[in-house]
């Protein structure tokens, strides 16, 4: 069966109409599931409108919000407020405290770290916490090529270590383009080749990180947000007059 590719972080700052062009490009490149960070204040009708555009274009749009909290309390407050409104929550861990809380919390889907080797806190403890809570490690590929060479070299070494750790602890790795401009978008296989050359993933693993892994994260959350969800593994299958 053909793979369904996903790019969970199209980071282009565009308006609603710009988003349509972005989705059309993603479709032309072969992606069938996309997500772009939205404002935490986005209203439900706005999200519905975006979903409608996506279905007109022929891609599946997952609603996503990215948080960049300064501390534990701020993160927990934002999670309480936003978890049931968005299908994906990514947390940019700017300090160790936030990184640990985010990795432990089941409401966080994607762990992100700054593009500075010293401010990446994905170590053994973080990986162990993330493996217990189903958080995925998100790695954005295209911003790497905007960095000065020296900086990129250090960061790539760090990223390879993180991927190795994630594999050891069974933390899912999600690759996304992180394209800040439409011209930085790449086809999924090109991203997979990049990841396999730069990050030490096997090509098949890189393809999974662009297809099955992100799709599972989105599916799991959609199931949780469904009114039929009761608890993991338990859902309502019939209601009212439907019940025998």
């Amino acid at each position, binding site marked *: 069966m053909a793979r369904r590719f996903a790019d969970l972080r199209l980071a282009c700052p565009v308006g609603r109409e710009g988003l349509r062009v972005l989705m*059309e490009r993603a479709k032309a490149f072969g992606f069938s599931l996309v997500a772009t960070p939205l404002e935490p204040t986005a209203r439900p009708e706005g999200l519905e409108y975006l979903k409608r555009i996506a279905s007109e274009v022929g891609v599946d749009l997952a609603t996503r919000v990215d948080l960049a909290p300064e501390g534990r309390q701020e993160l927990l407050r934002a999670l309480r407020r936003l978890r049931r409104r968005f299908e994906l929550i990514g947390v940019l861990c700017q300090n160790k405290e936030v990184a640990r809380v985010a990795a432990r919390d089941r409401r966080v889907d994607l762990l992100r770290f700054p593009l500075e080797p010293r401010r990446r806190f994905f170590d053994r403890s973080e990986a162990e916490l993330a493996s217990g809570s189903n958080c995925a490690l998100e790695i954005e590929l295209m911003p790497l090529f*905007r960095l000065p060479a020296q900086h990129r070299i250090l960061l790539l070494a760090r990223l390879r270590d993180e991927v190795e750790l994630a594999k050891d602890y069974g933390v899912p790795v999600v690759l996304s383009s992180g394209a800040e401009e439409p011209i930085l978008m790449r086809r999924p*296989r090109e991203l997979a080749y*990049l990841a396999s050359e730069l990050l030490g993933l096997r090509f098949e693993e890189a393809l999974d990180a662009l297809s099955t892994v992100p799709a599972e994260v989105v599916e799991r959350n959609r199931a949780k947000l469904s009114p039929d969800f009761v608890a993991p593994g338990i859902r309502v299958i019939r209601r009212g007059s439907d019940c025998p």
Partner: protein
Amino acid sequence: MPVRRYKRRYLAVQVEGARPRNARELEELVLNAILRLSGELGASSATIKVIEYDAERGVGIIRCPHLRMGLVRAALASITALDGRPTALHVVDVSGTLRALRKRLPSRLMRLPGQ
């Protein structure tokens, strides 16, 4: 009977944004990207050659050893600028023979929204 020592792959490339003016400029752009990604040792093992390039349409065919195709494609994806202007090189098709690639190429070219 003489046997070729290694297999080759032909990559059809579509340029978006700033376009190289000719085949030589395209080859230089790709070679520099390979150099940046894997150094001189990697570049020497990924001997690329631009077979043809239409600067008007921004479409070209690049040949590389099939065992180094991953590196070449990664290098192509890593190209983000040409002389300071944004650019992107998309691999739209791959084939083991030029004939098959040329036959399929017209149907594989992308019409990119927002281009």
